[in-house]
């Protein structure tokens, strides 16, 4: 009952009849790191939006800390990273963090957020002058600055080079070791394998596999997650066609 996230038979049908998510049931217990993995258009982002109270399930129910995700008591316990095309120009890294920290009741000290996101040397730089990787670290900083219990990260390492990606993994691991519950989406199997306790594999809006990285490999009968991913998503496609 007290799991940070509970999806109960959730479906999302967009106007026009496109089914983005169908009948998903998923509980994320406290302290778990869950990777939501799937090809483009599988429904990952829609699922994340429903968890954040930004999209309403067509059927079923989403509960976050046993509340409606739009409830401010739920939002105070969540830190979010979305795919942002551009941050508003004209504010420094420190100012962005100061503003987002103010939304929370017991935020981290600004200095600690800067340190955790490896932004100490960039604190007084305007966000529009950051590189792609630095901007992603700022987005990460805005997610963690409120010291939330639950982190929801939508493709946190999208479009990052390998170095920045590995650095962000390290930062996510630190949060994980602090006992945070973390849900992130990714295309990178390697990333899911490296960070997650559990993987939910999504294809065509459905959870087609759910378990530890090892269990998923075992189920597909292969040692490589890459092969497991292809096997499991393809089976689902074939089922859908037949």
């Amino acid at each position: 009952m007290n799991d940070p996230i509970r999806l109960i038979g959730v479906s999302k049908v967009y106007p026009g009849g496109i089914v983005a998510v169908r009948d998903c049931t998923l509980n994320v217990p406290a302290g778990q790191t869950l990777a939501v993995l799937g090809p483009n258009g599988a429904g990952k982002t829609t699922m994340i939006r429903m968890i954040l109270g930004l999209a309403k399930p067509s059927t079923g129910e989403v509960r976050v800390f046993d509340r409606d995700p739009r409830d401010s008591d739920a939002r105070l316990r969540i830190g979010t990273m979305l795919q942002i095309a551009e941050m508003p120009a004209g504010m420094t890294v420190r100012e962005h963090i100061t503003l987002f920290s103010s939304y929370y009741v017991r935020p981290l000290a600004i200095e600690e957020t800067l340190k955790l996101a490896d932004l100490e040397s960039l604190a007084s730089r305007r966000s529009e002058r950051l590189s792609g990787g630095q901007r992603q670290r700022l987005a990460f900083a805005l997610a963690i600055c409120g010291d939330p219990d639950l982190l929801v990260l939508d493709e946190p390492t999208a479009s990052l080079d390998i170095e920045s990606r590995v650095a962000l993994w390290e930062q996510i691991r630190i949060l994980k070791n602090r006992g945070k519950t973390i849900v992130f989406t990714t295309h990178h199997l390697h990333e899911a394998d490296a960070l997650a306790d559990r993987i939910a594999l999504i294809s065509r809006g459905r959870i087609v596999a759910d378990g530890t990285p090892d269990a998923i490999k075992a189920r597909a009968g292969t040692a490589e997650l890459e092969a497991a991913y292809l096997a499991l998503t393809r089976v689902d496609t074939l089922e859908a066609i037949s």
Partner: protein
Amino acid sequence: MTNVANIYALETKFEFLKQLRRPAYAIATLGFPLMFYAFFGLMSGLHNNGLSLSTYLLATYGAFGVVGASLFGFGVSVALERGAGWLLLKRASPMPPLAYFVAKLISATAFSAIVVGLLFAMGALFGGVHLAALTWLQLGGALVIGALPFCAMGLALGYLISPNSAVAVINVINLPMSFISGLWLPVNALPPVIQQIAPFMPAYHLGQLALSTIGVQSPQPWYLHVLVLLAFTAAALSVAAFAYRRDEGETYG
């Protein structure tokens, strides 16, 4: 409670700083009205209804200034932040949703006050504008409060137009509207056709209200201008509310 007050204060402070540091906004909202007033208001000795043109045009360029500050302050930033997904991140955060709009309102109003203050200084120092202290206050008050309908219009535009074309679309609306409304040249100096269209422009009514504070007789009674501006505000807010809900509906519907 102090926490909530703190959110509003910080949101407003950073909204204002953000706009101040954006050269395109600062130049468009402060630079153009001042430059136009310098060219058209200060450089000729013409009179209109017994007033010096520099005094008459101080009121109308003041209106031009606050309309621009409001339309750009709201419209461009809302369109950009919405288009980039920033607004969605804000909505997912624990920020009280109203704080976002209140911050923009206060920031745009502050810019309106600044542009009016600068124009007043210019008129008094270089244009030989002499007004009683109370008249300065009435004119300034009418302009800054009269900017509010255009904040509502900017908000509605911010939800309707795409981020890439926001600046262009607002210019295409603002510049002809200002000209037709008699904010650049006195209405009675414009071609008769335009004089006929002018009362259909919201900015015309702001201009006439501002002029009435310095004793220029309007063809319509002052309360009609107030009523039109109120009705226009209500209409703009309804459009904004509709667009806001449509926006939410795409995700939350």
